């Protein structure tokens, strides 16, 4: 047994075998370690990847809810159209990047090849519209107006059109009932972007690649309820995309319908009258600038005074909201947003702000009463008011002697308010007020009236307006003093002088600032919707409401109705006695004051109207016209930029809107049958059992009907040359229009 050497056991071999053994074990150890790393440490990550791997989503898009007017007439709904779309992924697989296919497609659709190419390129910083800002993996709509024949051509020759589909799809439509438009109120949709998808990924309402998102107006404000929830069925698929099982399925939930307080007929009347008023204004000669009024933009708000619900809201210039449907063309987009455009996308009722002119006196009057000045005190209405060498003139130098606050409001006497503001300025300590707060009644009251902040109307991007109080002046001076001090010269041009003054004491409340402010000139800015809230509150006894357009949300099946209730935001800081005085004054404006020449023959005993005109100066431009009015139930605010005086520019238009609401005929009689809305719409439209909403047909053009009914009205109508029963004042009207101030506006040219 021992004579045969155990050759396998020589030490060298043994050592090497141990080395092999250690090597083998360490290899296995490496595998174990790596396995642990992949499965235990990074396991969750890979699990996520695996589920993304084998799950395919099939999206069943939700039908977007309709936007309806107060009677159920659809302002925005959906229609089925033949949509031709192209898939970028498939196009890029072509050797020429799909150019030939697109050119061929353009031929079939009767479009220019270049236009088609533009539609499928992706948006980036350097690419202007039109371009696709949705997901590059989603089919891009080329047109939604394909004819059945075109669709058939594409489908039958699908091998010629790789990546191109022609399918019927629900497409947003803005039917514009009764020729109404409501473009800025409704807003528009555009495809969801990648970043939005990422952002909304983990919220309760995530976006799908195919979603369209509301970009402005009601479409944006109520996007979540209108959009509904797309149905998603998740299929487990194998590596070739074959379905091997259904993982999860959520049925599509159609978006809810939004009932608004808009009455499409009144809306039409408002839009038509605004447009007409602007056209007429452009034919009027402006003596101050020596040319016709430009009347380049305007807005109307018709609001229920007792609830804050918006019945009509029009903004001019306007556009056709249907241009957005199916992707906007380059030309259209430029016309809407380009530098040369008049920015029709802006809703000037909530995004346009201007100095309020004399319509601001409602605030100044309340401020005076708050500051302790008696209503019936005799306030001198002189022809001018001088302060330290500066002369602030009354309009056309008229004088009324000592009058009450109510009378001052009615005749719009500037000097009364100059005097009151000046007194208050002095009481507050003049240019350098003592420590301890100046009372600032005039500014405080403006804030109490809701100025300088959003009204909270249910539309996006409302602007705040501005109350030029001490805080604002300080902040504004801080932001601009460097520029002022650099360009300002003591003995330079007008602009340089102003800059010099501003540099020295622009942070302080100067005497002239407060005097100017008291009649709504200078740096004060308000929006039409703010005026609507204020005058609505005066009409309803002092309650401010948050304006609302949405009235109720009705689920697609009609079973769930969620009313949107009017919300009070506070009370005006005025007593009932003061309100009564104001009411009388504002009624006087209509019957014998600055607006009387436009409201001759109005059945004031049946339908009492109240109003206040305003004409605001804008540095370097023509004056902004304001007309703020209210009846028992409604507030109507109209403003037109660069259009002269409030009554002159908007008198007929506002009168016609009231005529339409109440059915007032040209001869002053009231025909209730023709009244569009003699009382605010109380209930909601009826809902059928299948969830559809009953709506009356709107035929014809309500605006033309109103116009026809006003034929007999001698003070009204298209023809300005009609003899007026109340002759207009020699220059426009008796308003707050003053001679150009010697000191000019404190605002610097933009």
């Amino acid at each position, binding site marked *: 047994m021992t004579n045969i050497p155990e050759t396998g056991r020589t030490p060298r071999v043994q050592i090497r075998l141990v*080395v092999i053994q250690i090597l*083998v074990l360490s290899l*296995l150890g490496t*595998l174990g370690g*790596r396995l642990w790393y992949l499965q235990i440490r990074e396991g969750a990550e890979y699990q996520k*990847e695996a589920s993304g791997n084998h799950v395919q989503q099939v999206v069943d898009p939700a039908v977007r809810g309709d936007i309806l007017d107060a009677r159920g007439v659809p302002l925005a709904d959906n229609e089925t159209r033949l949509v031709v779309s192209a898939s970028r992924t498939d196009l890029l697989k072509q050797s020429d990047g799909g150019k030939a296919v697109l050119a061929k497609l353009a031929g079939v659709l009767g479009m220019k090849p270049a236009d088609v190419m533009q539609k499928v390129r992706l948006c980036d910083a350097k690419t202007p519209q039109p371009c696709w800002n949705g997901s590059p993996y989603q089919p891009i709509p080329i047109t939604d107006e394909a004819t059945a024949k075109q669709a058939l051509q594409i489908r039958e020759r699908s091998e010629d059109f790789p990546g191109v589909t022609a399918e019927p799809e629900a497409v947003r439509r803005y039917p514009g009932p009764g020729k109404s438009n409501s473009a800025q109120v409704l807003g528009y949709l555009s495809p969801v972007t990648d970043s939005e998808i990422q952002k909304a990924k983990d919220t309760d309402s995530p976006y799908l690649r195919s979603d369209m998102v509301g970009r402005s107006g009601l479409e944006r404000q109520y996007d979540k309820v209108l959009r509904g929830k797309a149905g998603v069925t998740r299929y487990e698929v194998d590596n070739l995309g074959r379905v091997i099982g259904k993982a999860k399925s959520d049925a599509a939930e159609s978006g809810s319908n939004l009932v608004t307080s808009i009455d499409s007929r009144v809306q039409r009347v408002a839009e038509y009258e605004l447009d007409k008023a602007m056209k007429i204004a452009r034919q009027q000669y402006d003596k101050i600038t020596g040319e016709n009024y430009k009347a380049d933009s305007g807005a109307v708000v018709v609001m229920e005074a007792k609830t804050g619900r918006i019945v009509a809201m029009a903004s001019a210039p306007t556009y056709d909201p249907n241009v957005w449907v199916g992707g906007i063309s380059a030309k259209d987009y430029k016309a809407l947003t380009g530098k040369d455009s008049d920015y029709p996308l802006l809703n000037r009722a909530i995004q346009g702000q201007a100095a309020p002119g004399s319509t601001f006196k409602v605030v100044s009057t309340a401020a005076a009463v708050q500051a302790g000045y008696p209503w019936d005190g005799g306030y001198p209405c002189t022809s001018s008011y001088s302060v330290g060498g500066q002369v602030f003139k009354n309009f056309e130098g008229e004088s009324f002697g000592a009058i009450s606050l109510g009378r001052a409001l009615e005749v719009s006497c500037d000097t009364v308010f100059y005097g009151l503001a000046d007194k208050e300025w002095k009481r507050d300590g003049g240019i350098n007020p003592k420590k301890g707060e100046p009372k600032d009644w005039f500014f405080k009251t403006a804030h109490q009236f809701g100025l300088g902040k959003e009204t909270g109307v249910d539309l996006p991007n409302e602007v705040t307006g501005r109350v030029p109080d001490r805080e604002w002046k300080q902040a504004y001076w801080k932001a601009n003093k460097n520029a002022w001090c650099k360009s300002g010269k003591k003995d330079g041009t007008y602009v340089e002088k102003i800059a010099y003054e501003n540099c020295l004491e622009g942070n302080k409340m100067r005497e002239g600032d407060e005097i100017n402010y008291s009649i709504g000139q200078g740096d004060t800015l308000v929006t039409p919707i703010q005026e609507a809230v204020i005058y609505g509150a005066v009409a309803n006894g002092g309650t401010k409401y948050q304006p609302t357009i949405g009235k109720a949300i009705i689920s697609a099946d009609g079973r769930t109705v969620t009313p949107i209730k009017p919300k009070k935001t506070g009370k005006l800081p005025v007593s009932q006695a003061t309100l009564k005085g104001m009411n009388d004054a504002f009624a006087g404006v209509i019957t014998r004051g600055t607006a009387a020449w436009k409201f001759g023959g109005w059945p004031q005993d049946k339908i009492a109207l109240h109003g206040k005109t305003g004409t605001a100066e804008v540095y370097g431009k023509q004056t902004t016209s304001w007309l703020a009015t209210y009846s028992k139930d409604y507030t109507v605010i109209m403003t037109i930029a660069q259009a002269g005086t409030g009554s002159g520019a908007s008198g007929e238009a506002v009168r016609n809107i009231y005529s339409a609401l109440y059915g007032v005929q040209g001869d002053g009689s009231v025909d209730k049958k023709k009244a569009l809305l003699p009382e605010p719409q109380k209930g909601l439209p009826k809902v059928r059992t299948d969830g559809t909403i009953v709506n009356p047909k709107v035929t014809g053009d309500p605006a033309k009907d109103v116009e026809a009914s006003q034929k007999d009205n001698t003070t009204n109508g298209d023809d300005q040359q009609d003899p007026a029963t109340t002759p207009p004042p020699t220059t426009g009207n008796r308003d707050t229009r003053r001679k150009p101030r010697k000191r000019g506006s404190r605002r610097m040219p933009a």
Partner: protein
Amino acid sequence: MTGANGFSVSGYGPERAGWTRILSRDSLARRLDWPILLAATALSLLGSLLVYSATRNRTELNQGDPYFFLLRHLMNLGIGIALMIGTIWLGHRALRNAVPILYGLSVLLALVVLTPLGATINGQRNWLVIGGFSLQPAEFLKVTIILGMAMLLATRVDAGDKPFPDHRTVFQSLCLAAVPILILLLMPDLGSVLAMVAIILGVLLASGASNRWVFGLLITGVIGCVAIWQLHILDEYQINRFAAFANPDLDPAGVGYNTNQARIAIGSGGLTGAGLFHGSQTTGQFVPEQQTDFVFTVAGEELGFVGAGLIILLLGVVLWRACRIARDSTELYGTTVAAGIVAWFAFQAFENIGMTLGIMPVTGLPLPFVSYGGSSMFAVWVAIGLLQSIKVQRPMSA
């Protein structure tokens, strides 16, 4: 050798009758290495489940019969076990005499593959299809190369002439190995070439050949690789394919895809896996070649860390026991053969599992016992037979 029961070996202990004989201390059954046998059987059976899971839905492969691959795998296992029994019965020493014939036969088979009779599967011409059966001669070459080299290297040492194989013998053995490697390179079957190299290294190490040979071989290999890389002998895409295991983006549609999907499958398994037949990656057939080269991903996904770890553990048992057998063998021939088998199994297991885990390049090597494939199954079970034979015949030298 009495052929009475095929398990007993004559000249060893008194003959007993019946099952007591089997259980007796010296019986063949008692002397067999049971851990290695049980581990190998467990791996093969586990493999059958994984193969079934990977193929039951692949109608394009299984001809509509979900059990097609399962049954074939079990059949292969049966044949493999029979081959093992045959090998034990013959004994590795008897096979030693047959080595020239076996070597010649397997080289001949490999050469036939290069003729039009060979079949190309997955870009590699390494299949031989005979009457519905497909063979991979490369698998048999691994066994015969081990036997052939061991025979050359150990004969004179075992005869007591020399303490270690001399340079001439080593050179001869390398020439013996070079012929099949050249054939494999022509196929080209890179994976098998690498396995061969590992086997040669293992055999040389265990034979006690001079360090110079071992290191010389290693250095030649390294220089060769660097040369291939630096002299741009391979196209860039080939290098990318090779390197895609580390960075799947280098070959996203090819190897990178495999790597990626394999990693996702294994990673998603977590601790206990999705459950047998419940892996979505497996059911969805996202991992190509999942019943053969990528069978480990099925274990990773469906059985998780526990199941996949068990496979590594069982392979560890096989390798550990094989190392013991190599160390315990009293003759260099047995030691060298066992060490060659250790090198073979270890390299192939590490390479195969490593590529599914993304730490080794992707090559077409099966996982011993687990992967579907007849040739591989037969070869590894013959190897188990050789190991058993070395173990039971250990005292033969007495």
